[in-house]
């Protein structure tokens, strides 16, 4: 039995397997299916200060080995979250990572401040990378300065582990990891979805009401692995890798490329019971290959 724990700033995760934001509701929805306290973490749906409707359906469309989504960050807002969902998450023993959104730096700070005042929030994942909303998000995530500014501003208002979530829609994600590290982030997570588009050739309209959407799923895995590999060489802080993970091998690929922990999103839609198998499989691999801890495997890619 290898040591599966992962340290992220002041937080210690049971294991490196985290449910990805927007793919696991508010966590509570899955509690009837299995014990979500067994997960390394639960990243809940992105939250703004106030309730938000998101985009009109259709919001998803399937693509080769992937899917596009343009949910538009529908959410109940941070105040209803702490009142209605957080107590249940605490009762369930979940390691709760809250995905924080904003249209302005002030909103990011305000949401983070509210969360910091409540028991049961274990970390903040700063969503500066949602490709599906006009204002906010990506506008910070695609500018090094914007990234630095929003991360350092939020850093000032919270002592919770702070994890900026990076977009893959840039030339050099590693530079954004570096900017986040310099701004005081405890870790970075990547990748968010790839800005993409699907058109119905019969109607000649986009298949999504929003026009564009974010590509996720196995299709993007090789690009995401490359980006995690590049970031590992650019920063010392922990990296939470994701993008198309569906199997134990997929998760190991990210860890070997440089991820300290991983998130699983789209694959949870296909198999909401995959979690225990991932955790057991990583443990079995570590034992088989003689690693005392998952930490020892991080970034252990060997050149050919």
């Amino acid at each position, binding site marked *: 039995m290898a040591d599966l724990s992962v340290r992220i700033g002041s937080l210690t995760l049971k294991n490196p397997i985290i449910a990805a934001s927007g*793919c696991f509701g508010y966590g509570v929805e899955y509690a009837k*299916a299995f014990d979500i306290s067994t997960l390394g973490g639960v990243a809940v749906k992105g939250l703004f200060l106030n309730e938000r*409707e998101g985009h009109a*359906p259709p*919001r998803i469309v399937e693509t080769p080995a992937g899917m596009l*989504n343009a*949910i538009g960050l529908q959410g109940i807002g941070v105040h209803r979250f702490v009142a209605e969902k957080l107590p249940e998450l605490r009762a369930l023993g979940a390691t709760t990572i809250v995905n924080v959104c904003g249209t302005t730096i002030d909103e990011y700070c305000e949401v983070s401040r509210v969360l910091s005042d409540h028991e049961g929030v274990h970390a903040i994942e700063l969503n500066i990378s949602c490709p599906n909303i006009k204002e906010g998000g990506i506008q910070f995530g695609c500018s090094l300065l914007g990234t630095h500014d929003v991360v350092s501003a939020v850093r000032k208002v919270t002592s919770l582990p702070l994890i900026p979530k990076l977009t893959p829609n840039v030339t050099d994600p590693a530079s954004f990891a570096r900017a986040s590290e310099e701004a005081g982030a405890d870790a970075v997570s990547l990748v968010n979805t790839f800005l993409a588009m699907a058109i119905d050739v019969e109607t000649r309209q986009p298949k999504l009401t929003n026009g564009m959407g974010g590509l996720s799923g196995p299709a993007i895995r090789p690009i995401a692995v490359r980006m995690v590999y590049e970031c590992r060489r650019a920063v010392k802080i922990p990296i939470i890798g994701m993008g198309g993970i569906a199997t134990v091998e997929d998760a190991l690929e990210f860890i070997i490329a440089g991820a300290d922990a991983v998130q699983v999103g789209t694959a949870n839609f*296909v198999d*909401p019971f995959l979690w225990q198998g991932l955790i057991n499989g990583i443990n079995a691999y570590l034992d088989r290959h003689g690693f005392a801890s998952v930490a020892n495997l991080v970034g252990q890619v060997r050149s050919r």
Partner: protein
Amino acid sequence: MPVDIPAVVLHNTRLSPDYNVIALQAPALAALAAPGQFVMLKTAPGLDPLLRRPFSIFELLRDDNGALRGLTVLNKRVGIGTGLLYDAKPGDQISCLGPLGRPFVPVDAPAQAWMVAGGVGLAPFVTLAEALAARGTSMTLFYGGRSAADLYYAEWFEAQGARLVLTTDDGSRGEPGRVTGPLARELAALAPEAAVTLYACGPTPMMRAVADLGTTHARTTFVSLEPVMGCGMGGCYSCVVRVHRPGGTHLVRSCIDGPVFDASALVWDALAGGH
């Protein structure tokens, strides 16, 4: 408490060039099922297609001793996944996740249950009819199709004690035209105090017409919606529909707050676009 079962295909019965009934061995899942719930099927192993597809639980399968063996799905081929289910062979394995969603609430006598089905919308009514029959609630099935050949399983409902009101577009069986025609007449003819609850499933325009009739004649109407669903578990927010709430409307997930809704709660104009 949904379960995920690698269900073996017991048999695949073709009803027409685009309809089939596929039987899945899934006792543990069948044991949990309530009327009108659905399952998420992985229509093929591997990544093509990637996502599961939602299907109403059609029949519950029992062995000779009455023990639950599994369930069937009434499938209409409209694309990749439903095409794969149409071609499924006995012995194939299809992962079956469920039961999912809010079930139908069967009414009790003296209230009557009027079920209104269009095409593949018949699917959720077999389990409902069994529940109604079990409680001795008198039931009627208003059932419309393109032609006589499309009115599958009508006899089964009759055998359950349901009164049949059939319509076909081409008049080859029952009354010519839409199923909403006779429904409108019978509702108008009802004594005000006669308690009738409407249950509808089918194309969105048809469900909307039934909902409007329910409103006009002050009868509670439940509809079972069929939006695109990514996960069926409340995880993705892809399946939202607009419902009224005090002081306005909001979007709720039809996989967990539905697929069965009180028609009067829905903002029908917002549904027009989606499936």
